[in-house]
């Protein structure tokens, strides 16, 4: 078998993908560990359906970015019932502008379906049920024809900042003390 030649960016992409999967997928991590010890990947064992806990690091990192740029945690932690709509509206602008900036800096988000909401569309057999959910009168065989109620959202690229070794992701926002 000839090894494909990887460009730097291809390697970078692969390293990032491997990084996230190693963090989040124990089985994959075990494979990486074997590979780094010089062993060839073991043939995949017959996998039983299972559940797993996602690693919390990137979730906390994203929350921290939303707080930093858009005061997201401050907003959610506040009791909004005490304020008039106009006051909440003013704060919502800060949250919207900042969180949007943070979100777009980290993730490329596009709709799952490009059709306009309310339009009719047909799903062929073999559609991905994770990307398109059927609701209502779900009977019969595909192709299914129905109305698009929500376009859905999906992430096409993830560009989270790199974190230093030992960085405490549980601190979403440090306390500030002015001297």
């Amino acid at each position, binding site marked *: 078998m000839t090894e494909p030649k990887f460009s730097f960016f291809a390697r970078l992409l692969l390293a990032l993908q491997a990084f996230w999967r190693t963090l989040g997928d124990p089985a994959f991590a075990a494979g990486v560990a074997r590979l780094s010890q010089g062993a060839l990947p073991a043939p995949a064992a017959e996998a039983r359906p299972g559940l797993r806990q996602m690693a919390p690091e990137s979730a906390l990192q994203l929350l921290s970015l939303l707080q930093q740029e858009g005061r997201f945690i401050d907003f959610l932690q506040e009791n909004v019932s*005490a304020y008039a709509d106009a006051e*909440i509206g003013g704060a919502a602008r*800060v949250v919207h502008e900042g969180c949007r900036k943070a979100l777009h800096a980290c993730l490329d988000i596009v709709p799952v379906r490009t059709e306009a909401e309310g339009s009719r569309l047909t799903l062929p057999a073999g559609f991905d049920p994770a990307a398109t959910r059927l609701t209502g009168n779900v009977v019969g065989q595909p192709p299914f024809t129905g109305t698009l109620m929500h376009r859905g959202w999906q992430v096409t690229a993830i560009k989270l900042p*790199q974190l230093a070794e030992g960085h405490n992701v549980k601190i979403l926002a440090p306390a*500030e003390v002015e001297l």
Partner: protein
Amino acid sequence: MSAARYAVGIDLGTTHCVMSAVDLTQDESEQVVQQMVAIPQLTGPGSVEDRLLLPSFLYLPHPDELAPNDLTLPWGTQPPFVVGELARNLGSRTPIRLVSSAKSWLCHPGVDRRASILPVEAPPEVPQVSPLQASIHYLEHLRQAWDHQYPDAPLLEQEVTITVPASFDPAARELTDEAAAAVGFGHRTLLEEPQAALYSWILASEGGWRKQVEVGDIILVIDLGGGTTDLSLIVVTERDGSLELNRVAVGDHILLGGDNMDLALAHLVRTKLAGQNISLDLWQLQALTHGCRTAKEAMLTDPAIDTMPVVVPSRGSRLIGGTIRTELTREEVTHTLVEGFFPWVDASARPASRARTALTKLGLPYAQDAGITRHLAAFLGRQTHATEALAGFVTLPPNASFLHPTAVLLNGGVFKAPLLAERTLEMLNAWLQAEGSPPARLLEGADLDLAVARGAAYYGYVRRGRGVRIRGGTAKAYYVGIESAMPAVPGMEPPLQALCIAPFGMEEGTDAALPSQEVGLVVGEPVRFRFFGSSVRREDRVGSVLEQWSPEEVEELEEIEANLPAEGRTSGEVVPVRLHAAVTEVGTLRLEAIPREGHETWKVEFDVRGQE
């Protein structure tokens, strides 16, 4: 020529640094492959991101402020200071530890640029750095960022072009070169930013530029960055049937830019809030400036928006209760920016300048007149005769009171606002129309933020003899002040003459002739000369002596200093020398003292220690 693989352009800006590269190994027949280079940097403590812009900020943290791990960079170092986005961020809360606008300090004649003076307001325990050292830190960060991504082609071995404002004086250019030399760049060149912007436009046109300009065109480049306004005139001529570009004039150093505009809006809103008995602290004012910038950008790009809310969030965790909300109207933005920075004036208008008070606070010499159109009028007025030597190519109406550009290239983030770009063009065209000239056209396809770095990278490629090169050389003639031989009159200073030692338009790598006049240097003692430059006297040759001049015509620069070592001579002896000027390959001016006898030469230094 070096065996460099890439031509790398570095825009070492007042507010941002940008890096771009052109692959030199590609075939000549192919399209020029130009790419932007990402600059990994700390964006939060312990958090690193790739960005195209490196904010030109340096933060000097307290030892207890950040853990060593918070400072880890992708290349495995943990420097005791922060450069880039995080530096700007931390500095907004702790300004006493933030170094900003180091580049403007680099050309500030009032201070010692090698002395540790920044941050200016720092208390004694903060270890200050010099403007030169700050520039070295930025270049060093860029070097490491490059080497991290191109380990097989270290930056120090590449063909590096660093941009400087066209208005930088010889001393500031030399300091920039000194910073680059300190980092270790082996093959470095300086390029003026407006020229880089034009190179970028040429590159982007993919050969089409020859159809967009013609012989006789006078291109006005207006580069309006975050902190400075830089002006240049570039004329299209013809030689042996092909088009040539000649940079014929550059403007003064004007510390006025987009940041001033955001600040002006913030002050307007602050005054409005003060009327409602709401006062803002420093942190809130920063947030307000940011809010005003966002509102300004939205309103200037979308004419349908008439008011934009500006919200200053509270600093504490109570976001809703503590938030201050106000509005910025289109009227206010238009009035403050358009009337304040681009006032509608006659071509004869000149910027107001207050007389300098004797005791000025240590600070940057910001432009005293915010009217960019007035600075522009002054520049074009002063350069009315800039194209006379190119007679046959360029013709002006006989009674023109200013130089008439035929095309305009706009650069810098300010012109992302179509309103301000249009206003600038309308103002210029009104002046042209008043003197019977056709309107100037806008050169399309400029890239406002990244153009300078792109153009600088392309210039490294052009220097290898491919593509068109902008000619020009030095944009000033240089003179030393000599006291005329006259009987001393008590109470009267001997009249000063200016001896030309470097003519206008000296190209890189050329020497000026030796003047026949000699000056006396005292052995073992530093001897200082007054030094002058003129951006309009194109006809003076080496040895020309000016008896009198107007400040409009000839401006005084910082002094130059010659130091004659005492070896082989008696201390205190006066040695007659001639002053010789050359422009190095890098693009800096070099002055030497050459004695009548012997073969030694001594370097004459630009005095960058500031006035005492």
